[in-house]
């Protein structure tokens, strides 16, 4: 405790957080102990330190007692560090003369033994008190925010966020990987609980995106790299070759008719393979943009180079360019909204449901396409063998709530299963059996929807299906037998059906990890992106300026997705309109007189913030480029680089504080 700056007067405050902290940690004992430590002028505990009275109490002490250091032991700094920094600065203290002790998340909430927990709180309080003595007044750097926004993903989340921002006058870049925007919602027939047609509500929004002067829409494009930081991101986008000159194509679709393949014969992604397409195709009639795309995987010309190129010939506008190359765009934006969506669970992951083995086993998304008037059967529910089902089983929780596949509840399956039950009944008049574990219909008008569906005569069987197999005794129909226990009557039942619908769950996209790395955000072990705080910052990420919308954050339905997209847009707007952002001042700097110019630090910086000044023969750190990791500080062989907020002395004093155990506490214990 030698080299502190001047006369250190520290105030220490520990929060009860109701009983969250005080229920485990003996806050009075902590205060009692801390008040005896050197430099501590005030030590207090209070029920809710973050409340107005709590904040005012601290500010009053700072003024009255002339405090020049502040330590607050409360929750995680991720939650309230900013709050208490503000408390300090409003009381006239530089906000960085403050140190926070995490006594809730990393102490009271994770330990049961009150004594051990209190000891830990004391150790960490002492550590912070030692540390804060070395703190220095720092200034936050203000960085202007580029008003442009990048929206990644053109599903309903990306569409809604883009429109909200564009309507507010912001320049938006919407990047979509597929040839069209619309995402999964474009594949749906009707939406629950209102049963309004998905296309009717989605396609107008899609064309608004296309036509909005503030939106630059790049479909069939992918983000290649993201650099920079909040307010100043540099993004590289790769526009994959469509082999169509976008400006020339008018969407007449003559080229599709002219293709050398007279009949479509390739897997149609949009229709889940229930129909075929040609190598030159448009994903679906309302695709936005209305541009064809040529798939090099199936186009003869790309394989043999011997195609007659009838498509090229037929195009009067000469819009087909089979030599098109990828285009690379570099854009600058201030904020990014990640709305990359989900992937439906691969139903063959539950082998005993026979998906891919028995042709009459369908996934829910396939059935959406079957029912859809613009789908492969124009809305007729005709199965792969050409027959129409009279008995249909809908199986819930396929790839959800199962440790063997995905443990989480996919949240939308119950409701869309009910919806499909209704639509299938409407289309086929078949008997519908819904096999479920629990029916979950939270949300506005959802339980009412369930009620209606039940009233329509859909049969509900509470039991998870254990087996699906063809009825070998039934020579004619070869129906599929769905075997389950009806747990409510405790009977094993075997229901013969013509069609099985697997209500597959929602999964993170397969490349979620790559996306996460590119944007420097975090994701759960499953692969859904993690929000900054589940309640208080649900659309923020741990990386400032990057927000989340839609199912990439976790399964959710369309209303929630749209709400979240709006929230993400609002967060981005709030940042943009504030004009600038204050950066954490935790950058590193070279103490020039100490530097020997050994150059060891220069190659360490991934941001090239460190350079070697040939004239002075010393290293130099560009503060604007430094992101504050501190790796160079730990590596400087002569100790000549420092990091604000994480100076060596600060960390040594923290170590010292933790281990400098004096017996004040024990003495008061036994006496």
């Amino acid at each position, binding site marked *: 405790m030698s080299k502190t700056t001047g006369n250190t007067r520290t105030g220490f405050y520990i929060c009860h957080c109701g009983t969250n902290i005080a229920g485990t940690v003996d806050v009075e004992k902590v205060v009692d102990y801390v008040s005896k430590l050197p430099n501590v002028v005030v030590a207090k505990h209070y029920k809710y330190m973050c409340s107005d009275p709590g904040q005012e109490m601290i500010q009053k002490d700072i003024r009255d007692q002339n405090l020049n250091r502040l330590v607050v032991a409360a929750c995680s700094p991720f939650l309230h560090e900013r709050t208490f920094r503000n408390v300090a600065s409003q009381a006239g203290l530089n906000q960085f003369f403050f140190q926070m002790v995490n006594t809730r998340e990393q102490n009271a909430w994770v330990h049961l033994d009150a004594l051990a927990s209190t000891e830990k709180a004391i150790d960490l309080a002492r550590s912070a008190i030692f540390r804060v003595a070395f703190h220095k007044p720092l200034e936050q750097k203000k960085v202007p925010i580029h008003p442009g926004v990048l929206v990644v993903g053109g599903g309903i989340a990306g569409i809604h966020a883009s429109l909200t921002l564009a309507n507010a006058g912001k320049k938006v870049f919407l990047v979509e990987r597929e040839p069209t925007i619309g995402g999964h919602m474009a594949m749906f027939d009707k939406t629950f609980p209102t049963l309004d047609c998905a296309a009717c509500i989605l396609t107008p929004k899609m064309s608004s995106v296309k036509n909005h002067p503030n939106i630059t829409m790049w479909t069939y494009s992918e983000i290649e790299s993201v650099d920079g930081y909040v307010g100043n991101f540099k993004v590289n986008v790769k526009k994959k070759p469509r082999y169509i000159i976008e400006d020339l194509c008018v969407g007449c679709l003559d080229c599709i008719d002219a293709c050398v393949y007279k009949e479509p014969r390739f897997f149609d992604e949009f229709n889940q393979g229930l129909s075929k397409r040609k190598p030159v195709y448009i994903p679906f009639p309302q695709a936005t943009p209305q541009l064809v795309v040529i798939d090099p995987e199936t186009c003869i010309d790309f394989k043999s180079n011997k195609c007659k190129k009838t498509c090229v010939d037929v195009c009067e506008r000469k819009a087909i360019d089979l030599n098109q190359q990828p285009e690379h765009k570099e854009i600058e934006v201030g904020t990014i909204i990640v709305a990359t969506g989900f992937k439906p669970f691969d139903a063959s992951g539950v082998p005993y449901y026979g998906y891919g083995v028995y042709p009459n086993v369908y996934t829910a998304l396939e059935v959406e396409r079957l029912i859809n008037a613009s789908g492969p059967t124009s809305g007729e529910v005709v199965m792969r063998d050409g027959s129409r089902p009279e008995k249909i089983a809908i199986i819930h929780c396929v790839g959800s709530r199962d440790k063997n596949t995905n443990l989480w509840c996919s949240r939308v399956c119950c409701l869309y299963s009910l919806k499909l039950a209704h639509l299938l009944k409407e289309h086929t008049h078949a008997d519908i059996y819904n096999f479920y574990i629990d029916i979950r219909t939270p949300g506005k008008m959802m339980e009412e929807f369930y009620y209606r569906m039940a009233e329509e005569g859909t049969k509900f069987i509470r039991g998870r299906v254990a087996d699906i197999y063809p009825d070998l005794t039934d020579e004619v129909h070869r129906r599929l037998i769905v075997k389950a226990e009806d747990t409510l009557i405790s009977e094993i039942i075997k229901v013969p059906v013509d069609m099985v619908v697997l209500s597959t769950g929602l999964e993170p996209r397969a490349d979620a990890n790559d996306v996460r790395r590119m944007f420097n955000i975090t994701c759960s072990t499953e692969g859904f992106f993690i929000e900054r705080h589940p309640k208080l910052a649900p659309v923020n990420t741990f990386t400032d300026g990057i927000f989340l919308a839609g199912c990439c954050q976790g399964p959710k339905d369309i209303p929630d997705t749209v709400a979240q997209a709006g929230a993400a847009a609002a967060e981005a707007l709030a940042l943009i309109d504030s004009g600038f952002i204050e950066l954490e001042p935790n950058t590193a700097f070279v103490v020039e007189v100490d530097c*020997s110019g*050994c150059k060891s630090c220069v*190659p360490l910086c991934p941001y090239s913030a460190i350079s070697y000044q040939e004239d002075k023969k010393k290293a130099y750190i560009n503060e604007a480029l430094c992101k504050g990791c501190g790796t160079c500080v730990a590596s400087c062989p*002569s*100790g000549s680089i420092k990091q604000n907020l994480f100076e060596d002395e600060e960390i040594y004093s923290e170590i010292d504080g933790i281990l400098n155990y004096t017996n004040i506490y024990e003495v008061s214990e036994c006496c």
Partner: protein
Amino acid sequence: MPDKPKIAMYWCASCGGCEESVVDLAEDILFVLDNVDIIFWPVALDFKKSDVEKYKDVEIVASLINGAIRSTEQEEMVRLLRKKSKVIIAYGACAQLGGIPALANEFQKEEILRYVYEEAPSAVNPDKKRPQAQFKDDDRETELPELWDTVRTLEQVIDVDYYLPGCPPSSKLLKEAVLVLLSGILPSKGTVLAPDLALCEECPRKDTKPTDLSFTEFKRPNMHNIDPEKCILSQGFICIGPATRSGCGAMCIEGNMPCTGCYGPTSRVKDQGAKILSSITSNISGKTEKEIDAILEGIPDPVGTFYRYGMAGSLLRKKVDF
């Protein structure tokens, strides 16, 4: 004529090189002798302990003590000198940091004695005799110094005022130190009387070091030729220069050998070994344990490499458990 300032010099656990460095002053030694009275210098002149004892407390202006402390005799003598001297200067790497003798802190005393007196190939000692602290023969009773378990730096035994680093300190630094002492304007206590910048500052090969160094292998000078023009570290030879104080004039580098760190760390570093390790390893290539370990095979003895002079003065001081 008033008495010239009295100076004492003493050696403890050291090789004698420090004493040699005084002689290396060459004609400058005459200047020194003109200005001071060397009242105790056992390596050069016949003085006895009693000669020191007869001085009054703090009567000696400065004692320059070299060598690490590892025996009863050394401890006794430095305590005596401390009592009699106004200023104590830890002279050289051994006194400052423990030096080469402190590498013994990697072993137990017993291990060392057993090896030296019994197991070393050159040892012929069938009766396994060891030196005794006390020896009695007829009427004579002799007391011999005893080894301690731990090798210590001078400051771990007595209060030290200044440090003169190096193995040995350069005559330039010694001369400067003497001038400072004679000037009477003393630097603040604890000062290391050498520049607080790392060796690269004065290294003649500084400009040849690239700014994108990434180690793919480490080489040892006894097995590979060192390019006499280029930065030695950049050639894959461990050079402790970046973590070592300057002041020596980069003599080893001039001799085409890497710096081994004898001038000790800068004032901003607590543990020279840890710091240079951190710096060098951060810059190796390889991202998996396997790749990294393969490169690190070139450093078979990291303690001997990075703590060659600093073990006793390091944060852990010696091997803590055997």
